[in-house]
């Protein structure tokens, strides 16, 4: 694990890491991933992955309108609200 890889992953994860954090993270992730290399020794040829450990029942519900959160309560914790909606920074640039 290199500092450049850490910076690349941080961009993917939308985390603004400072130089000290990058250094620490490079060392920590390197040590953790080195430990995980033990999995290389396990033969998993022909083994299916387990994404869920317990088989799911997942019954279908009736497709019917039910009450949900009203707008006021849904917006109550938002950092900024305008005109009954979440106010967020500009997503598209004016020119694009």
């Amino acid at each position, binding site marked *: 694990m290199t500092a450049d890889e850490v910076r690349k992953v941080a961009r993917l994860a939308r985390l603004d890491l400072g130089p000290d954090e990058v250094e620490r*993270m490079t060392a920590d992730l390197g040590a*953790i991933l080195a430990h*995980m290399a033990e999995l290389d020794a396990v033969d998993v040829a022909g083994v299916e992955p387990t994404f869920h450990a317990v088989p*799911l029942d997942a019954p279908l519900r009736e497709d019917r309108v039910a009450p949900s*959160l009203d707008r006021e309560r849904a917006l109550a914790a938002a*950092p900024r609200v305008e005109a009954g909606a979440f106010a967020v920074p500009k997503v598209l640039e004016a020119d694009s």
Partner: protein
Amino acid sequence: MTRPGEDAVGGVIDVAEAVRGGARSALEVAEACIAGIRAGDPALHSFLYVDEEGALAAAAAVDAARAAGEALGPLAGVPIGVKDNLCTAGVPTTCASKILEGYRPPYDAHVIERLRDAGAVIVGKTNLDEFAMGSSNENSAFGPVHNPWALDRAPGGSSGGSAAAVAGRLVSAALGSDTGGSVRQPGAFCGVTAIKPTYGRVSRYGLIAFASSLDQVGPLARSVRDCARLLEVLSGYDPRDATSAVRPVGQYERACERDVRKLRVGVVRDELEQVQDPDVRARVDDAIAALESAGADVVEVTLPTARYGLSMYYLIAPAEASSNLARFDGMRYGLRVAGADLTATYERTRAAGFGPEVKRRIMLGTYALSAGYYDAFYLKAQKVRTLLRRDFAAAFARCDVVLSPTTPTPAFKLGDKSGDPLQMYLADIFTLPAALAGLPAISTPAGLSAAGLPVGVQLTAPAFEEERLFTASRAVEDALWRDAPAPAFAAPRGDRSAVSSAAGAPSR
């Protein structure tokens, strides 16, 4: 006046029966509980928020229902603390993170509804490792919890506040959540019983997600019977959680009264032989002997893939966490730190809002899922997980429950492992396999170490066989923890607790 460590409250069944029979009013119990938290929690810092108003109102409603001749629920008047990653309508829910500081959810988690319907009195929100990521509670953004058995020691994590509050006799019981051991490990460190149910047994609706294929809500209580009563209330199908199981709930309280004769207890001999700590070895041997003398048959089993639990878990759980925690972007709730553009706003918000361990896991998970590494890390771990499930299936062909230590050592000192993430992760090695396999597992105290710290023994059962866990752990409790000793923790160590600030906001 209540002294720290004094039991002004009582256990779950004791309180429920006293309130039902009229020996105590729910209001009187709630007032005693809050006074006890004010006296005891400055030493423990187990609570992030105490909802005095809500608790007294809930207690008064129980008393009014009784006066009106209505039937009371199985938890009528029982004061309960709730881990602060469970949504409580209108009551702060922070996950011990700055990114959710001051957040008040608009709805209750399913388990909160269940508690309320059963007559429980929710007294407040307990401290945890940030977003339930940690094994010592030192990752709380609002300061660590102290173990009531020795205030310089960790209570375990991530449900450390819940475990310390129950052990310190501040509440009758508490709810936690367990992703890789987060109710069982603190349960062991604090000398209380804690169960992680089968994946799907308890709805995750309103539990703020960490790793969705592993997370389960579980109770922590002073006794196995108390724990059983709580789990019976919490369990059952909920259409709002797509992974919720459509299966009848077991009779857990009744299972506590069964004897263990002919129960086959599996022991993994080579795993036990690798335990370095003499106290853990001795208490586990005591538990095996106790079960044997109560009539259980001890058989040897093997779980060869369990040794890879840590590597599997710390790929799978962070991968799922990196996805789940993407929702904390400063747009709809929580902290927002403005940047030059949208991406900079995301990056600055998340950099300021998340603590070091949460960032580490998001990074690890993002890496494990990223192009070029997915097959080598994430997919590989999920395949090894299949081998682990096969190991358990083979073991359960030979035994009814598997017994192991809950933790490799009793509670370690605060600060001992906080500089080395890998050392901290190793505190979970015995609790990770059941989590990865989705199996129910319980930790119950099996006595004290030479230094006077509790030691937990873990029992694991096949999916949806929680009843066996209650039967077997009752036998361990009966032999080794009959009097349920309580810690006598000393006077407050300063102004640290939620109860000491007038607004009830987390202390910094």
